[in-house]
């Protein structure tokens, strides 16, 4: 957005309102990205916090190439990967129990019984290797182009595309298995 450039200009000048607007505009989307990528949902807030604090340190020098939402989403994805690794090291629980843990640690709003389909999808997403889940979420939630993801992640477009394809194929296999049971 044109707004991005204006906000970044303001942010680089140290304008607090610009930074507050950036946070308010992108918070909800970034929360979803974090929630979809983290094995333990209780880490969502910390990941958002860390990303915004790191971003704030770049004041005066931040240069935007592409969309700000894309940039912040990639930062969330990188942090989420680190968190997942740390969580995995701390605990020996398997993926299934980690997934169970996610819903148990949810807040009151989350205690509402979700649809069966949502639970199947949540389960299927958790089964995906992180690098595939990451591309699927960045593309579908953050609406990032494959080229943009490839550029920001420093991998080739073909790698991104094949991860996306494998991710969707695996989701399909898992879901068909679930549905046909």
């Amino acid at each position: 957005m044109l707004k991005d450039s204006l906000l970044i200009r303001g942010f680089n000048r140290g304008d607090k309102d610009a930074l507050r607007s950036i946070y308010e505009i992108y918070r909800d989307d970034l929360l979803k990205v974090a929630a979809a990528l983290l094995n333990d949902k209780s880490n969502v807030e910390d990941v958002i916090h860390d990303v915004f604090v790191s971003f704030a340190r770049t004041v005066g020098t931040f240069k935007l190439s592409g969309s700000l939402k894309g940039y912040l989403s990639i930062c969330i994805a990188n942090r989420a990967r680190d968190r997942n690794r740390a969580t995995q090291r701390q605990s020996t629980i398997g993926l299934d129990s980690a997934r169970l843990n996610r819903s148990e640690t949810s807040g009151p709003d989350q205690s509402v019984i979700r649809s069966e389909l949502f639970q199947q999808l949540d389960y299927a997403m958790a089964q995906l290797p992180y690098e595939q889940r990451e591309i699927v979420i960045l593309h579908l939630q953050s609406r990032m182009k494959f080229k943009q993801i490839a550029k920001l992640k420093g991998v080739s477009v073909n790698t991104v595309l094949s991860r996306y394809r494998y991710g969707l194929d695996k989701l399909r296999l898992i879901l068909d298995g679930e549905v046909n049971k």
Partner: protein
Amino acid sequence: MRHTKNIKNLVKKSYLNNLNVPFSKEMDERILGDTLATMEESAKAGPALSQPNIWRKIMKSKIVKLATAAAIILAVVISVTILDKSAKPAWAIEQTIETLREIESIYIAGYFLTADAKKADFQAWIVPSSKDSSKSAYYRFEAGRFEPEDFNPYDQNRHVVVVSESDNSTYLYFPANTWTFYPNQKIAYISEGLDRNPKDPPCLGSDFFEKMKKQAQDWHEEYGKDEETGKQSVFVTCAHPTRMGAYFWWIQFDVETKLPVHYKLWLNKDYTGEPAVCVNKIIYNPKLPDGVFKFHVPEETKVLDHRELSEIVSADPTCGISVNELDTEEACKRVVSEYWEAVIDQDWEKVCRMRPMMEEQTWEELQNMYISVKPAKLLGIRECINIDNKASFPIVPCLIRMQNGMTKVGVLHVSIEQAGDDKRGVIVDSLGPEFVDP
């Protein structure tokens, strides 16, 4: 078995849309509080810590000290020379170029001649690209009936082009009454990249005049006064090539502001007859209306999203047919021909593969319709439209005879997509209803 596209929609609609994350005001305050405090600290620490260190390092060397002094003297000499030169002529194109460097946005309004030589009003809001100001980073072009500067994103009767650098997308909207066979069809095309139509007005940034200065032929300047305001002006005529071929320009520059205030373009070098484009209003750094570079899809509009199609073909390279070694027009005709052949043969698997954007439910309806009206023979393919407009899709009209002997027109959008090393031709969608009377 679920299709890749269905899985994608399932993840979007049933998973991501329902993924509610509880977030409290306290969390907001904690994150924002820490973030704002960090920014404040970094802003204070940044210049105080870094700048003196760099300066000391640089100025330690005697050679660097001498070079710095020489550079300052040179800069002063150049500035004096430039000031001296600029004082002589009343106007020079270099002054316009310099002045335009400070311009962040432009509004233009005027008219252009349509293919049937009728005048059509247009207006455009433009933000030049910071990389090349002869091109727009943000652009909204509107043609139709409206008062100048009237921004109404919900007016469905204006032809609209929106180019957005941050979306890296181009939006193109055609109102009803655009198409011959489909008088009520409204269509919006969305494509990746900034595909400005060559016929659209150029972006009058400093780089545009920089290029014009180098490339223009038969440059002629004449001093005079503005007809309405009486302000001193320079009238420049020149031939300057554009993507549409040579255009013959007439531009009026205001001597005081140095900025262009009117321009006209002719296709003939004699500057006779009505100009092809006439811009009679230019406002620099206008107040940009909120959401001027945002595209609103009008109700009941068919939306054809090229980005979505590219994703589908990238994810499933078996879509469509291979059209390697064919030029775009030949490829489009081949795709349409094979598509109707498959419909006539009731080869539904192939039809489905050739039309990958079709939703499951719509596909069932379409299949039932084909079975009931029974297309029997492809009588001919007419000339393809929109072959070179990257912001839309090529349109291919066909004549088809039905099994009951009636002849119908079917107009299809076709796309030629690159899937790895393979060039794939696919049917995007019909222009309006699948069949209409000729």
